[in-house]
């Protein structure tokens, strides 16, 4: 999802789209994961029909979207950005006002986060609730290439969280506890690993993130907390999550911090639109419900956005002005 970037394709598409498409008022980046793209379509519909702006959806991955927003001022809105994964360039732009982060502390999706998960039935059967519980039972999660060891699936190549996982692996001294890293290779591999293991009723332990359809459909539990809690920002940002080639020397065990999601816009947008995107937020459990619906119906992001607007007016009417709500409702009829 967030680190998985088809950068080149996205850059090409964004350039292509921005040159050939007729200039719309407001361009919205469709992030390439389910909630990210659904939110883009919800935004587009509400801004178009509620606030009367011409909108256009452009494809975007994190790495391609933010530089394009900084240098070209387009797209204008990116709905569900994971603040923790923003690079220096983006943070500088946020500081000097080239970009504006409009979401308050609770985030776009409340309770979103990454970390270590296990299947629910394994958790209940063996009464595993914390990372330490799981680490004591490598026998429940055999590594496919060495069944005497426990396997922990980490992030694929090229995701910055891979290093985070490896540092935590070391911090929890997992090698001594009988664990071995299981590399998924790509998001395809990661998903298929979770899906296959849970479908076959096997134990699986490792990295995923929420809210996602996987966590809902497969019934994954997590992100697991640790008995030591979150061991401080310094330990996390300067050591566990630091992006150096070598492992951090004195990494302390820690649970994963919750991730903040936020909406980022370019300056100079209609204030009414900014007001709307800054209050728009979904609870984690509701997001999972939506994702399960998408999955059940194998719906596209656009169909899901329409389903959401049609079925749950009590949620979105709170985000917009009464006048805009009326207009959106009228257009849905």
């Amino acid at each position, binding site marked *: 999802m967030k680190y998985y970037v088809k950068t080149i394709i996205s850059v090409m598409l964004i350039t292509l789209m921005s040159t050939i498409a007729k200039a719309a008022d407001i361009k919205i980046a469709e992030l390439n994961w389910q909630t990210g793209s659904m939110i883009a379509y919800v935004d587009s519909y509400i801004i178009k029909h509620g606030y009367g702006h011409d909108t256009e959806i452009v494809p975007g991955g994190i790495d391609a979207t933010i530089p394009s927003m900084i240098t070209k001022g387009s797209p204008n809105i990116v709905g569900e950005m994971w603040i923790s994964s923003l690079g220096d360039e983006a943070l500088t732009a946020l500081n000097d006002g080239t970009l504006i982060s409009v979401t308050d502390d609770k985030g776009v999706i409340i309770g979103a986060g990454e970390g270590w998960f296990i299947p629910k039935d394994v958790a209940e059967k063996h009464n595993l609730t914390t990372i330490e519980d799981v680490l004591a039972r490598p026998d429940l999660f055999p590594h496919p290439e060495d069944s005497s060891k426990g396997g922990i699936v980490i992030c694929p190549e090229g995701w910055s969280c891979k290093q985070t996982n490896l540092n935590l692996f070391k911090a929890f001294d997992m090698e001594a506890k009988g664990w071995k890293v299981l590399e998924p290779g790509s998001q395809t591999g990661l998903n298929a690993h979770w*899906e*296959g293991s849970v479908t076959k009723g096997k134990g699986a332990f490792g990295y995923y993130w929420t809210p996602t359809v996987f966590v809902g459909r497969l019934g994954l539990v997590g992100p697991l907390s640790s008995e030591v809690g979150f061991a401080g920002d310094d330990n996390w940002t300067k050591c566990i999550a630091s992006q150096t080639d070598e492992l951090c020397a004195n990494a302390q065990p820690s649970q994963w911090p919750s991730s903040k999601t936020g909406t980022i816009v370019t300056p100079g947008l209609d204030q009414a639109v900014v007001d709307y995107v800054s209050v728009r937020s979904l609870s984690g459990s509701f997001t999972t419900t939506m994702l399960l619906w998408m999955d059940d119906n194998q719906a596209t992001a656009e169909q899901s956005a329409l389903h959401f607007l049609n079925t749950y007016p009590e949620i979105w009417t709170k985000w917009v002005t009464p006048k805009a709500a009326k207009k959106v409702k009228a257009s849905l009829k």
Partner: protein
Amino acid sequence: MNFPSLDRETITSFKKSIDSTFREFAINWGDWFTELLSPIHWLLIHFEKLLIATPWYIFLSLTSLLLWKATQNWKLILGFLISFILIGLVGMWDDTMRTLAIVVVSTLVCIVIGIPIGILMAKNNLAHRIILPILDLMQTIPSFVYLIPVVMLFGLGKIPGLIAISVFAIPPVIRFTNIGLREVNKDLKETAQALGLRPLLILRLIELSLARNVILGGINQTIMMALSMVVIASMIGVRGLGSQVMNSIGNGYLGLGVISGLSIVALAIIIDRAIQSHNKRYDKWRDYK
């Protein structure tokens, strides 16, 4: 005007029924298949361990010896030594060994399965008509389509990687075996029959011997395709040069991409030249221009 497609519910339920049928299949048969392939899995793991554990100088001298036996071409051996020393110097040695291990084992699997199928195709026109479109399908279907089911069946790692590689790489060896056998001179076969040789002996002594170079050409193609699939296989957790390429794509590391990509190219060229040079030596009487 839109094409009159089935309504969305019908299509969705059709797609979902495929999903659930496959899930059912994975639950019931996943472990059985994993068990079935466990000898190959064992071979993969231990061959890789062996290659990585072998000290580099022993690997280089043994392989040089092998190449000399096969080709007697000192230029090739020089090229091999230079490129592998460069690979070692840029820190790609272990990954190259991992890639070599999976490519060698995949190629063996392709040969063991592919040559008998090729023989069957050459001998039986019905089999020929049935298998040919299947080979086309295997070479053109986007590998992502079967990557996910394969991982669901076998889990992450080497076995699904081997299957993904083999599905893509096996067609040349089958095709070339078929063509090679069909091209054997009919008069020779008749003579052999007149001398009283049984069909199996004719196959072994005459047909396979004469088709040898064509079949080796097929194996060569299979190895090349296996190498090109290494990057795709790394998407499901096969470590090696492919995962370095993935890493460089994910992070935009151009240098790493070039180094790991060129390492794959070096492997491919050396294997290709070795087989060609061996072929030339094997039948000097042929007029190679």
